[in-house]
């Protein structure tokens, strides 16, 4: 019969439905919707009335929906960069330890399924939810833009937004994997939640201060700049911020500063998508690598761990 579903997809389905029906997910989605709508709405109001307030050029209007802000609300990319990790952590922090506590872990893996289905389905389920959420959100913003602006986005703009959304998914998946790893390491879900949040807080708030502090110790400005940049790039938050800013702002031509000599003779134009991506290719690779390494660690930990707490 055709309605035999492969056990792995049965498990992924269950993960998704558990996530979607959980209160914490609903609350986070509501929070994200509320803040981003506010941010987008104020930008749209400005675009409609005085587009010149945003920038001298009116090209790439759709990208400005994501990167610009007015009033006190931060722009869309900052909000997503801030709240996205929370979604990832919320989906992952009790993935394994709560099932262990509830006594469902040993019951499920005593079914005729390979052991890694369990951890893989946790990741796939979480990732599916994240991808749906991020793309729904991104396309909603585009749709809202079309209604308000009345012009369709250029193809290049659309591609940039899609790449941005994919990278956002990878970024949130990193935090999902971090949460899952902690859920294996710690038997208490509160411990794993707090540890994951501590890391998130460290990178969002304190890490840049720390980097600044270290960089200030260098006398030469150039050395300080190099040090601060390379240290900053250890932080996934910084990576995400850097690469999304560059992807969504085609006029940025370099990650560091450019000297006047380098600038001389350059046309004051924007970069094509391919060139922008080339510029942040190391960031993209690093982000994907961090996500995969995190998943690898959780996979190995789970496969090695005794089913029974001893």
């Amino acid at each position: 019969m055709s309605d035999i579903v492969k056990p792995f997809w049965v498990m992924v389905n269950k993960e998704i439905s558990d996530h979607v029906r959980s209160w914490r997910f609903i609350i986070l989605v509501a929070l994200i919707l509320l803040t981003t709508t506010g941010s987008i709405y104020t930008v749209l109001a400005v675009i409609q009335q005085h587009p010149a307030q945003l920038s001298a050029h009116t090209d790439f209007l759709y990208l400005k929906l994501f990167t610009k802000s007015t009033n006190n609300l931060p722009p869309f990319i900052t909000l997503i960069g801030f709240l996205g990790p929370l979604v990832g952590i919320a989906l992952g922090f009790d993935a394994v330890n709560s099932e262990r506590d509830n006594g469902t872990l040993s019951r499920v893996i005593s079914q005729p399924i390979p052991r890694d289905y369990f951890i893989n389905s946790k990741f796939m389920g979480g990732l599916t939810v994240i991808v749906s959420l991020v793309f729904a959100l991104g396309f909603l913003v585009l749709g809202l833009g079309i209604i308000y602006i009345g012009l369709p986005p250029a193809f290049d703009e659309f591609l940039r937004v899609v790449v941005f959304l994919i990278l956002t998914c990878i970024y949130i998946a990193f935090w999902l994997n971090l949460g899952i790893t902690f859920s294996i390491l710690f038997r208490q879900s509160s411990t794993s939640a707090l540890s994951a949040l501590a890391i998130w807080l460290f990178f969002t708030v304190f890490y840049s201060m720390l980097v600044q502090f270290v960089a200030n110790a260098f006398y030469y400005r150039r050395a300080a700049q190099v040090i601060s940049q390379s240290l900053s790039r250890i932080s996934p938050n910084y990576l995400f911020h850097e690469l999304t800013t560059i992807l969504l702002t085609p006029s940025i031509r370099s990650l560091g500063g450019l000297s006047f000599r380098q600038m001389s003779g350059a046309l004051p134009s924007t970069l094509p998508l391919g060139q922008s991506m080339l510029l942040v290719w190391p960031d993209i690779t690093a982000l994907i690598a961090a996500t995969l390494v995190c998943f690898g660690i959780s996979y190995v930990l789970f496969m090695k761990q005794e089913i029974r707490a001893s």
Partner: protein
Amino acid sequence: MDGPIIQINDLVKNYDTNTAVDHLNLDIRKGEIFGLLGPNGAGKTTIILSMLGLSEPTSGMVMVKGHDSTTEPLKVKKITGYLPDDVGFSGNSTGLENLVYTAMLNGIPRNEAIESAEELLEMVDLKEAGHKKTKTYSKGMTQRLGLADVMIKDPEIMVLDEPTIGIDPKGINEFLDLIRNLSKEKGMTVLLSSHLLHQVQKICDRVGILVEGKLLAQGKVDDLANELFGGKDTSITAEVSPITDELIQALSEKEGIKEIQGNGEVITMKGNRDVAPVISQTIVQNNAKLYRLSYKEYGLDEIYQHYFEGGTTDV
């Protein structure tokens, strides 16, 4: 006679410092109910987890119906239903949904799964509760749902880890009867572990006593008792009225009766089972009335205590 369906050969499992299972050998035959008995921490759960391929043995192997649990766990898990001691279900789903989920993990199509889940819920007396969320279930209900969960894959072997834990006494009997009937109807092999000895001795065909990772004895409960206490004196209690010194004197003169003590209306003494007729005769001859004469039956409790307190030295 079929060969054993579960064969445990020289199984060893070490955790960091301690040995949970120590060179264990055990055969379980098809269709029997085998009770694995021992105190907490004796290694019962470890044996079960190794059998299902959920825990890798340090050395030795477990064969289930010809499949090595360590290298072919999927084949073993296909034919084995496991009820963990701390069984739980996802609380926000109903009992029925939980059963259907397990069935689908076993490759059963959804429609069939719903059908058999409903049958099983009726069997374990959860027909109405099956449509309620499992977080509202009592421990006994969870345990019964666990049994249905084990049954839904139609296993050849049922492995039940401490199935009676947390159920009230009346529920325990019903639950054990259910297990026994299922096993006999379907010819299923049942391996159950417990530390509550007298509860499971009723339904087990054979038992094995496990202390500190070693199997101290195995066999039928009666055989074990005979083997251990056959030659020994048992304690005999007689309810007699009136108790006179002459009666005590007369009893003590009989051969095979020792340590006679009169206490109120009860006389306790020690002796072989064969002396019971002699005792009753003596009492009647001394013009006393005999209301009750009983000798102590050795059950698992005594066997267990014998091993556990006496250790292995005197066996």
